[in-house]
């Protein structure tokens, strides 16, 4: 309905949802992508899960689950390009075909016999852009499974030593811009066609540290590496993140949460917020993550194995109750990144990482109904108050001899004690959107 937002539709007890899939093929003559998306939604049997993770396994590690989309192929439309029935006949092969998924809610109004359909959120419903990549065999079930990978794959499929335009004043952001503008030497853009042929789909935060080792394509740092590996190393050196957004933009930015205020409020049992309503189905796990606690950060920034090649920041272990290393054990987070130009940068980076990992933080994994519009690193609030499982007397036994309060008898709190979150803030580090079950699973880390 006009005037209603995505929040209104997420909390509606009964709503209409949609999912659409599109492909963009490459012209067999020019090699360029066709200008319009071709919808293939009605041929899809299984949609799979859009799975995006950042920092969830290791800092600065952006991973994308292996999305597998199953299409029915009764008419041979998804055969390889040498089949006359194939969508790809007279187009380039299926590999690296662009693939887009739109999903969200929809609704309509009818006035004087004219029906108007609304897509929510606000017409911007792209949930994923990627490419077909890998083996895609058919079977006697008349179906084909497409392996879909995120657009990071186009950077993986390009040798770093083939990059043109490197010079002695290369910063991380300039390197990213160089990728944005990278050509084949004859004016044909190498990466940009996968990003809708526009520079605005590259969101690059400016950095100032110069990486002298990236001055030439013959640099040792580039040897035997692909472009994405260099992007990851630069992100690590800058304490930034590089990833692909839901709508297919390349983003290079700091690791802080995207917003300073919560982008969304999740409520489970015990939550009373009516604006966002109830969305949590289950909390699968919640608690502190000692496995992500480190009392030492050690960075090797020079390939020589000498003490001056390392920068270390640590909290000394002291045998006292307030000392984290004593409480949790001394754990070292090691980084080897020889792109880091000098000890000053290494020390600053080590300190930044130490600030982030030297405090033990809570992580939560929870499952919700369909919440399609959020982004990795979004800041969210969670309210959940589990009900007591073992019912006891309504009278709180602990208060019988309460010396502080004047009344001996009062009702126990109605909520439970096992899990109690009251508008607690987290940022997303992993999200899975199951398009077959219209269900989301998130992992979020305490802010």
């Amino acid at each position: 309905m006009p005037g209603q937002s995505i929040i209104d539709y997420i909390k509606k007890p009964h709503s209409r949802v949609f999912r659409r899939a599109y492909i963009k093929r490459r012209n067999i003559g020019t090699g360029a992508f066709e200008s319009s998306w071709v919808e293939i939604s009605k041929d899809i049997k299984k949609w799979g899960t859009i799975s995006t993770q950042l920092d969830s396994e290791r800092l600065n590690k952006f991973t994308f689950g292996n999305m597998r989309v199953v299409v029915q192929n009764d008419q041979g439309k998804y055969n390889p390009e040498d089949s006359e029935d194939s969508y790809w006949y007279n187009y380039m092969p299926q590999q690296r075909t662009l693939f887009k998924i739109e999903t969200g809610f929809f609704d309509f109004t009818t006035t004087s016999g004219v029906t108007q359909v609304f897509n929510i959120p606000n017409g911007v419903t792209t949930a994923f852009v990627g490419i077909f990549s890998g083996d895609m065999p058919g079977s006697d079930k008349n179906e084909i499974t497409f392996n879909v990978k995120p657009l990071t794959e186009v950077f993986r499929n390009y040798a770093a030593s083939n990059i043109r335009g490197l010079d002695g004043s290369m910063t991380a952001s300039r390197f990213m811009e160089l990728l944005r503008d990278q050509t084949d030497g004859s004016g044909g853009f190498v990466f940009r066609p996968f990003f809708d042929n526009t520079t605005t789909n590259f969101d690059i935060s400016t950095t100032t540290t110069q990486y002298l080792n990236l001055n030439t394509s013959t640099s040792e740092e580039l040897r035997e590496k692909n472009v994405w590996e260099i992007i990851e190393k630069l992100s690590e050196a800058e304490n930034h993140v590089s990833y692909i957004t839901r709508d297919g933009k390349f983003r290079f930015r700091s690791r802080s949460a995207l917003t300073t205020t919560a982008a969304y409020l999740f409520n489970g049992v015990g939550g009373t917020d009516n604006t966002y309503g109830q969305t949590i189905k289950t909390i699968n796990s919640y608690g502190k993550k000692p496995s992500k606690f480190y009392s030492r950060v050690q960075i090797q920034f020079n390939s020589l194995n000498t003490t001056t090649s390392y920068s270390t920041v640590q909290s000394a272990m002291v045998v006292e109750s307030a000392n984290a290393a004593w409480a949790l054990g001394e754990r070292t987070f090691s980084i080897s990144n020889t792109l880091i130009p000098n000890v000053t940068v290494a020390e600053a980076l080590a300190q930044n990482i130490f600030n982030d990992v030297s405090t033990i933080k809570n992580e939560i994994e929870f499952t919700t109904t369909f919440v399609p519009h959020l982004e990795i690193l979004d800041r969210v609030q969670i309210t959940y108050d589990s009900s007591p499982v073992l019912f006891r007397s309504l009278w709180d036994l602990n208060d019988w001899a309460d010396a502080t309060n004047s009344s001996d008898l009062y009702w126990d709190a109605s909520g439970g004690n096992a899990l109690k979150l009251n508008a607690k803030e987290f940022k997303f580090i992993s999200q899975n959107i199951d398009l077959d079950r219209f269900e989301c699973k998130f992992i979020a880390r305490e802010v």
Partner: protein
Amino acid sequence: MEILYQNYFNTSTQAVVNSNTSTAQYLLTRDTYYQYVSSGFNNDLTQTTIRINFDATTSVSRIAILNTNAREMIIFRNGLTASTFALTTTSSTVTSSWVSNSASSMYLSFSAVDVTSVSFDIKSTIVANVEKAVAQIVISSVQINFSQLPSAKNYKPLIDTKQIVHELSDGGTRVHAVKDKYSHKVKLTNAPLTFQSQFKTLFEAHNPFMFCPFGTTTSWDAILYEAVWVGNFDFYTYSDDNANAGFTGNMDFRESPT
């Protein structure tokens, strides 16, 4: 109760409209909330034309127009406004020309006639001076006209909904509706051999078809969809244990993807 051939209008390039070309594709969509809507024709003095062209001369005998707000309208063939269709199921008119239509959906029956195009000239709307709107157009011909109808207990129409049901942490339920599809289970008894043969031909073709249980010009329930026959052909069973009493068989029709 009729089974038609697949919609002869099956690609948006067949449709020529005089405004808002991008929404002409919705004329093929069964979901009637997607409409072709004119642009700049929200005046009863202006006329919207929708023309469906065919590559070759095509014999048609059924036209369905769904979820429209047309009041004064004329449907004609081959680009000649005088070439209307002589309706066999008449209402306020005996030809496909209306001055004050009030039905939002119509299923028009007429004797087979060869056409190279079918045009819809919409001159005014039921609520005056709004954009002209049409959800779906079906142009086809009859494959099987049921010479006998199933009894009520042998006829199971259904809106088969695809939905996801979530149980939330507080015990509440949330439903996400993905799509509603029609399905019909029909059982016929005492079907004569000629009738049985028609169904056998339909089954063996293994093609989709249009199914319309009760098509009428007025007060139509607007149930018309592209269906597939799911399961077996079992019209070999004699009815009433009598080889001369005809055949008994079951059909399971389900809507195709859109």
